[in-house]
């Protein structure tokens, strides 16, 4: 049942975007997010959107994958749109009926906020779609490692993320097994109100917790057996290196963002 679970939403590929250093992608993502928040003009939103579409095409990620990550957004999008439409009361009145009043400013803000959300989720999804989870954690570890000076546990965080990613499928599989075992003993997980159902989860969560602790203990022992002793003196098989491609990507992205922001000013 859980065998084919995909972690994160990585779309395997070998495009120029896939081959970018994860650090480049993470940093440019931050710049992109800043740009999305700073833009206040319909045409410039379209420009940012065009950039996102361009990257998608370059990454050869099928539109359906991107759509899948945007889909859960529908409700929030609708909610935000209506909320902004009704709450912001600036500019000419476009429509008036009873206590409902839609203004030009409200309509504009509603569109802005929707575009912003779509561009935000779409753009960040592009990063997770084109980067393996392990490359992401790796990139994050390197980016945060200068903070080690302030005793920030960058390596430990990355190790925690890696182990979590490694064990999510294992624990899901185990939860499935325990659930079936309890069902076969007559446990009722599906009927009743939300509280009764939450209570019915206890016989599943308790064994899962206990076995997780046992796993953690055994894993710690296995890691120690393999000479794990923290980040000190540790090397890596895959060394991240910035290439010309990364410089190019950074120049193009930052250049476009600068142009867009200049056009706004």
């Amino acid at each position, binding site marked *: 049942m859980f*065998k084919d679970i995909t*972690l994160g939403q990585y779309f395997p590929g070998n495009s120029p975007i896939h081959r970018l250093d994860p650090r480049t992608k993470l940093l440019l993502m931050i710049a992109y997010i800043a740009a999305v928040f700073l833009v206040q003009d319909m045409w410039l939103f379209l420009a940012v959107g065009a950039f996102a579409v361009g990257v998608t095409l370059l990454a050869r990620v099928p539109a359906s994958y991107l759509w899948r990550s945007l889909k859960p957004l529908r409700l929030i999008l609708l909610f935000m749109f209506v909320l902004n439409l009704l709450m912001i009361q600036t500019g000419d009145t476009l429509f008036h009926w009873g206590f409902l009043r839609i203004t030009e400013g409200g309509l504009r803000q509603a569109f802005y906020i929707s575009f912003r959300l779509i561009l935000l989720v779409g753009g960040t999804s592009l990063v997770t779609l084109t980067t*393996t*989870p*392990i490359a992401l954690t790796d990139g994050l570890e390197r980016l945060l490692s200068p903070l080690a000076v302030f005793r920030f546990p960058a390596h430990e965080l990355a190790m925690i993320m*890696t*182990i979590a*990613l*490694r064990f999510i*499928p*294992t624990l899901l*599989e185990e939860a499935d097994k325990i659930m079936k075992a309890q069902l076969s003993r007559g446990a009722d997980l599906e009927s009743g109100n939300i509280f009764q159902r939450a209570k019915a989860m206890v016989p599943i969560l308790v064994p899962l917790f206990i076995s997780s602790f*046992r*796993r953690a203990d*055994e*894993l710690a*022992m*296995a*890691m*120690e*057996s*393999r*000479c*794990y*002793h923290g980040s000190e*003196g*540790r*090397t*890596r*098989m*895959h*060394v991240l290196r910035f290439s010309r491609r990364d410089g190019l990507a950074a120049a193009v992205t930052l250049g476009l963002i600068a142009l867009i922001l200049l056009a706004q000013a």
Partner: protein
Amino acid sequence: MITLDHVSYQYDRQDAALNDVSLSIADGELVAIVGHNGSGKSTLAKHLNALLLPYAGKVLVDGLDTSDPENTLAIRQKVGMVFQNPDNQLVTTIVEEDVAFGPENLGIPSGEIRRRVDEALAAVGMEAFAKKAPHMLSGGQKQRVAIAGMLAMNPQVLVLDEATAMLDPQGRRDVLEIVGRLHKKGITVIMITQHMSEAALCDRIIVLSGGHMVLDGPPRSVFAQEDILRKAGLDLPPVVRMGALLNAGGMSLPLCLDVEELAEAIWQYSCKM
């Protein structure tokens, strides 16, 4: 060369898990340590790479005392350990990254790690799975990856702590076959096991019972001591048991370790009749 010198160990508020055990294992040996649940065999295994330190006595690995923290990393590099549950010893989300985990901890340069990882994966026949996620593999395949992870650290000794106990017959055969091959290449192999038929494949069997070492010798001499084995809660391997039963029924056969040998012995016996 591993030497245990009057080693005792005790978990909190319990009876001694190991009681005055002394033995030594030479380079290149293929040894089985057998015992019933609670006999102390896993405790003994964990003393071999300094996961546990003796409460009394001394463990020396290649002359290095395990109780000196300075030696811990060097000892763990020399003594690779594969555990029982294949799920709980793989650390990362990609097979080749996991094999690289040990060498990375040892601070080996990246090119050299790459070479060792490829070699180790080839040695266990898992090179086709290098980029796969561990949870997509079968138990036996995971155990082979775990062995590769040890090989990549260039160990002298490989300890398998009931490494086949959770595997299906095919997985068990694969793992045993690889272990046999590694032993031929000169690696010392120590198998902790409850399966007497696995122990029969080794050159030497050490039997533990209640934290004491009760037998130590080649399979033939150990299996000849059925009473002591039974007291330790262990059975003879099926083939040996069959020979014993035939002897009890009036035949006189030598002690045979595998089916072919037994068949040959029965043939010889019936020719003499």
